[in-house]
């Protein structure tokens, strides 16, 4: 039997509502930019991830100039060279200018893990160095590390949310649909997870893995830890929704037609919780990102030389670095803040757009 009635896609009214909310659009737009930056990090970064410069530890940011010390205007923006002094102080050498060049050859990389390349969006000719956001304690470019770090920090949130929300949806669905001892067991498990203070649980779970791990395995361990904790809250809410949804006539119809329990849960009940789940997921992503930041900040997450926003913050936490080289704190700090804010804006907008009590196009 062919379907003859055109079904309205649930995505369409959502998009119509979202377009009306400037904050949600700003948040969504910012996220698109951030994820694109992470995706094209090797190309957008002028240097390689752990490109050390032994002569420029803690080099301050090199501003771009259009006009030089003699008052002459340049067609290309340029940076000045610098001379190192004692105790990581640098003097700008206005005598030497290094013009900014596009598509320069530099360190080799593989884009998306496969496409080889050695062109970088911008750079300056050696011996000049361009540090848009300064250099860190081993002379690595902070802007470059920020981009590579975003590959870790931004994807942890997405991968974590996919795993833990699949778990939460399934377990919450099963719990609400079957009831009985299955329900009791799953709900007691969620209570257990929720009554351990979050950060303590994260640290305790971290103890299950060896402390020294290659960075890829650390990444997987972090995702596993955060997913294991994250499903509980969602499962409880989904269970409540399923309890009311399973009385619906279409569910009875599906059961009468002999659909298996799993099919009823996954195909008929859970899709009706999706508008809630989408909002919950958007709002929850920052929690996962901050989980990685937390672990790496404590030094038990992603280890240098691999970059992550958390271990960049860790490098900035000493008193001397904070007072003398504030770009070490501010660069990852602002990046984390912007990301969390973008997710919050988008989540708020989605919540308003999907709120059933809200009349289309009107106020609440």
């Amino acid at each position, binding site marked *: 039997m062919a379907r003859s009635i055109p079904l309205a896609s649930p995505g369409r009214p959502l998009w119509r509502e979202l377009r009306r909310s400037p904050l949600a659009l700003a948040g969504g737009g910012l996220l698109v930019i951030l994820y694109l930056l992470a995706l094209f990090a090797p190309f957008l970064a002028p240097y390689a991830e752990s490109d050390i410069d032994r002569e420029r530890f803690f080099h301050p940011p090199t501003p771009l100039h259009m006009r030089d010390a003699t008052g002459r205007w340049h067609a290309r923006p340029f940076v000045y060279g610098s001379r190192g002094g004692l105790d990581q102080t640098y003097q700008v050498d206005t005598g030497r200018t290094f013009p900014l060049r596009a598509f320069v050859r530099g360190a080799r990389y593989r884009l998306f893990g496969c496409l080889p390349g050695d062109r970088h969006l911008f750079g300056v000719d050696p011996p000049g160095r361009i540090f848009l956001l300064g250099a860190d304690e081993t002379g690595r470019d902070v802007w470059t590390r920020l981009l590579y770090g975003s590959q870790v920090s931004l994807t942890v949130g997405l991968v974590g949310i996919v795993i833990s929300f699949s778990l939460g949806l399934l377990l919450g669905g099963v719990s609400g649909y079957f009831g009985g001892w299955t329900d009791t067991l799953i709900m007691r498990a969620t209570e257990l997870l929720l009554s351990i203070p979050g950060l*303590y649980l994260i640290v305790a779970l971290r103890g*299950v893995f060896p402390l020294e791990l290659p960075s890829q395995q650390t990444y997987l361990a972090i995702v596993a830890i955060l997913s294991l904790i994250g499903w509980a809250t969602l499962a409880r809410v989904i269970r409540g929704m399923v309890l009311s949804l399973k009385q619906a006539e279409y569910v009875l119809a599906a059961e009468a037609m002999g659909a298996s329990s799993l099919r009823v849960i996954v195909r008929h009940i859970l899709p009706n919780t999706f508008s809630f789940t989408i909002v919950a997921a958007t709002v929850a992503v920052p929690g996962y990102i901050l989980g990685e930041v937390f672990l790496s900040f*404590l030094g*038990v997450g992603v280890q240098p030389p691999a970059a992550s926003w*958390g271990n960049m913050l860790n490098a900035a936490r000493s008193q001397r670095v*904070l*007072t003398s080289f504030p770009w070490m704190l501010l660069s990852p700090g602002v990046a984390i803040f912007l990301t969390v804010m973008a997710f919050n804006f988008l989540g708020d907008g989605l919540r308003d757009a999907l709120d059933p009590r809200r009349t289309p196009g009107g106020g609440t």
Partner: protein
Amino acid sequence: MRTFVLRRLLQTIPLLLGISALTFLLLQLAPGDFLATMAENPQISPAAIEAMRRRFGLDQPWWTQYLLYLRNIFLHLDFGESFSRHQPVFTVLRAGLANTLLLATSAAFVTWGLAIPLGVLAAVRQYGWTDRTLSFLAFLWLSVPEVLSGLLLLWLAASTGWFPVGGMRDLDYDTFGPLAKLGDLVRHLALPALAVGLIPLAGRMRQMRASLLDQLRLDYVTTARAKGLPESQVVVRHALRNALNPLITLFGFTLGSLVSGSFVAETIFSWPGLGSLTLEALNTRDQYLVMGSVLLASTVLIGGNLVADVLLAVSDPRIRQD
């Protein structure tokens, strides 16, 4: 009322058992045989290791081990031995817990001390520029992670020198008089408490604002105004008193979450609390210490929720019914 409290207390027992089972499971899953690690340490005598093995039944099957673990905890408050500190875990944790509770309580004062006046201000000036500015700042603040706010405060301390950059006591603490000792403690406590207390501020402020606005709409407020009472009296003496009622219960929940929240501040400001201890224990692979602190932190969280529930039942008789 008594049955409600009793029932609520009984409910926490399976929860604590579950948490102890989980921590025990994590102990088992942790890599490495710590007895072997201990044996490599020349400071620990073979006799001590043998005593350890017997005390925790480490040569027994796991269920015996778990029962021993439970019995030691519940009968003797014995959470095991800290390998790195050569002390019972409970002795190590007791000091840490006291420091964490001190930090969390001070942080609660910071949160509520700021949230109540700011929330009242926003509610009284609803939709005015004060309200809008406060709401906007609160919205932005929700996106500042505690690691960042903590580091910014540390930056403030390091660059101005107004506050110590970490620790709990001055080097010359022992030479101070009692008043100076208190002053020293407050100076060390100020920034970590601020860092922890500011985290939930935005949310609490919005709750205070909403709660007061709910009250200001009610008839008795109109009556009070009609009597010709000055607006400040109407707000402070009449509306605020009722508006604070629902927030009392939040206090208990906040205390629990502040224990978790103080983890980050403790590590940033080297505050010798439960969080710092846990991290140190993780790094030195001191498994019993890690699990003991998780168990203790959970107990505080559960206790906070219990207090919150009881307060709720006291203030709202409907809760007690079922």
